[in-house]
């Protein structure tokens, strides 16, 4: 679904990704792990087209996508939920959903969202920026439910959220996976994401340090080496 080959990218003279190869097979969930500053967010931004590559190619749904701007990639089925700011804060919840639906049937969109997150249904006329942190993240995640997205890139969805909310959000991610959509997930709760993921990539200083299945990386000790002793 998504293939990055030999991708180099960065900001000005600072090169963050230094030759990354990564594949998200169709219908699979891939976890992208790595320490702070490893380049996870940069990788997602490159995949979505928000940041250009200096070298290497990005292929989306079998076609070359390097020259496609973010909105083109979105129309080709890519949905990036950026960390911490996946919503239009000054707009109301209803207006947010209308934006997510991109001009299609907003009423049906609202139904889909409220079915997944009933609490949002009570707050349709409220400004999204005034929702609680958890509700904001629900709204952000609900974008993946709308539209015809085949590939969902999720960046740190659980940051700063209460455990109950994290459960709810990750449950939605699981639903998306079961619907056969491809996923690339960056997540701090390593254990939780390993339950969902089919494959794991570990990014270390801008390069892929490990590729494998969740079971392999539990045994091989890569966590200790690349993520510190926290995970395990």
């Amino acid at each position, binding site marked *: 679904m998504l293939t990055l080959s030999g991708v180099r990218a960065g900001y000005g003279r600072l090169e963050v990704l230094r030759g990354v190869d990564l594949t998200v097979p169709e219908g699979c969930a891939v976890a992208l792990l790595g320490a702070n500053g490893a380049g996870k967010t940069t990788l997602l931004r490159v995949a979505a087209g928000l940041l250009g590559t200096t070298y290497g190619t990005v292929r989306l749904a079998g076609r070359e996508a390097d020259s496609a*701007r*973010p909105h083109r990639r979105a129309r080709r089925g890519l949905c990036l939920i950026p960390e911490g700011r996946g919503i*239009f804060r000054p707009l109301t919840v209803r207006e947010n959903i*209308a*934006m997510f639906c991109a001009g299609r049937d907003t009423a049906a969109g609202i139904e889909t969202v409220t079915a997944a997150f009933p609490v949002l249904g009570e707050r349709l006329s409220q400004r999204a920026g005034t929702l609680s942190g958890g509700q904001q993240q629900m709204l952000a995640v609900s*974008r993946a439910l709308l*539209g015809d997205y085949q590939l969902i890139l999720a960046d740190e969805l659980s940051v700063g959220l209460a455990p109950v909310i994290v459960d709810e959000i990750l449950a939605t991610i699981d639903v998306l996976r079961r619907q056969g959509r491809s996923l690339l997930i960056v997540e701090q709760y390593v254990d939780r994401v390993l339950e969902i993921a089919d494959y794991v990539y570990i990014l270390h200083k801008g390069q892929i340090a490990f590729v494998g299945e969740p079971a392999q990386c539990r045994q091989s000790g890569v966590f200790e080496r690349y993520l510190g002793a926290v995970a395990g």
Partner: protein
Amino acid sequence: MKAYWPFVVVGLTAGSVYALAAMGLVVTYTTSGVFNFAHGATGMFATFVFYQWRDAMPTWLAFVLVVLVLAPLFGAFVDSVLLRRLAGAPPSVYVVASLGLLVALQGTALVVFDVRLRQAEPIFPQGTLRLAGVNVGYDQAWIVGIAAVAAVALALFFRRTHLGLQTRAVIADGELTELVGADSRRITTFSWMLGSSFAALSGILLAPSIGLDAVILTLLVVQAFGAASVGRLTNLPLTYGGALGIGILAALSTKFVTEYRGLAGVPSSLPFLVLFGVLVLSPKGTFREVVETSARTARRKERRTRPLSARAGVLLLAAAVALPSLLTGSQLVTATATVAFVLIFASLGLLVGLSRQVSLCHATFAVIGATTLAHLLSAGLPFPVALLAAGLVVAPVGALIAIPALRLSGLFLALATFGFGVAAQYLLFSTGLLFGEDQRAIIGRPGAFGISLRGDAAFYYFTLAVVVLGIVAVEVVRRTRLGRLLRALADSPDGVMSIGINPTASRVLVFALSAFLAAVAGGLLGALYQRFNTYTLDFFQSLVWLTVLVTAGAVSLGGSVLAAFLFVAVPSFFTRISGFGDYEPIFFGVAAVLLAQAPDGLVGLLHPPDFSALATRVAWRREESWHRDRREAVC
């Protein structure tokens, strides 16, 4: 009470036109983050085209073509061709680019159109209707009605249409708008088209009451700045209300000031007073840029800036010393003016190049310097002492301007200095405080320490000596702690404060120094020409100077020298080629738009190509392969 109603009607009409202009300004600013200083110039240009085309076709057709076709096309051009390249640049870059556009448009209008003030034929039926005991012209009713309808339509557009929703989404978060599959560039371009249309509409409606005059039209639409500041540059209803309020206040004040000659400038400068007042008096943090410059997306061209080498400096100085023997009469006057302008540009460069603060009132500093010099000379002070004192009088004025500089950044500081410059021109210049009763300052060149400065060569050397002193002062600032501090402040004010340094003193100091030098240079210019009136250096000069300096290079001393040469010496050399001078502002305007992002300007282009980037790249690869070889060797 009844006596006031006619003024309210006049004010409401003017306010409605301001509102149209201001709403267009706000729409483009909020969606693109670019505060378009050329908004008024766009309206002016469209107005000229409209009244010219009107002679050849029905009014409605000319209206449709200009407001709905030509102006939007121009807006799209500005957005997609001129400004998109600058994405992610710091605000001062956008200020310079749009000022360049203003100067270029103004210059083009002077070349293309017959800009002698002429009456614009009314577009609405003549006659009046009586409304609640007041005579209201049909045209006034039309204008108020059109502005109200446009305001409501704009509100409905943003609330009810999907494109309006998308526009608000771009304002909120441009990247996310892209991510949900909407083309944010297309939306931004649309808002520029919309803004441009509003500018054209306001200019066309305004022209019948003030006449077709390139400068006045540009300026009067620019008065919308005041209204936009009431709406915090972002809020449309507040902007509309603010515009009407300003219009009514200005009209009412005309009734009051007729009794006081000194206050004659109040009505016309009211919008700028509002602008300056709102910016300076609002609580800190009220005015924030809608688009944050993120270090990540900023594609700053980091070229090494090389100070003018000592050798080049000595050569230049030697040439300057030898010059009088080669020149005669008027040529020597031109040479003296060029030297004086080096100091003006150096003082502006201190702000623009070093601390990245845009000042749009440097001509005002120069004028106050020149007129103060005139007063002090007539009081009997020796020339050098009077010149120094004139500079010292203006320095506190610069410090006063620094107050907004402490609280405002980038765009808003530029706006505040702009407001100050215009208000000073309308209010101070007309009072006689500066220019005296006959609106003309006579500045003699008596002499100093027994040496007469009356001769052109003597005055040339005197000017050269003063300017060299001033430049040495600038270079000292550049290379010592204050200079480093200002560079650091330009880069990250928070960073500077976090290491325990209070930025107040350095910012006040640099503004005061810059104003001091500009005033001294103004005094030199005044003494050179020996007379100065209110139009010698009007505030528009401040804008032109900025574009010239940016074109030449704001960062280095070489840029200041080149700027003075381009601005003064080259045009006077070419005066014989007819019409050359007319094209000059167009050149500087366009060049400023193109070079806005390269702080080194033309001077920077003279540098040899930068091989260091390539070198580091190669070195890095070599290092990498070296590591690989080592690894393999170890294994």
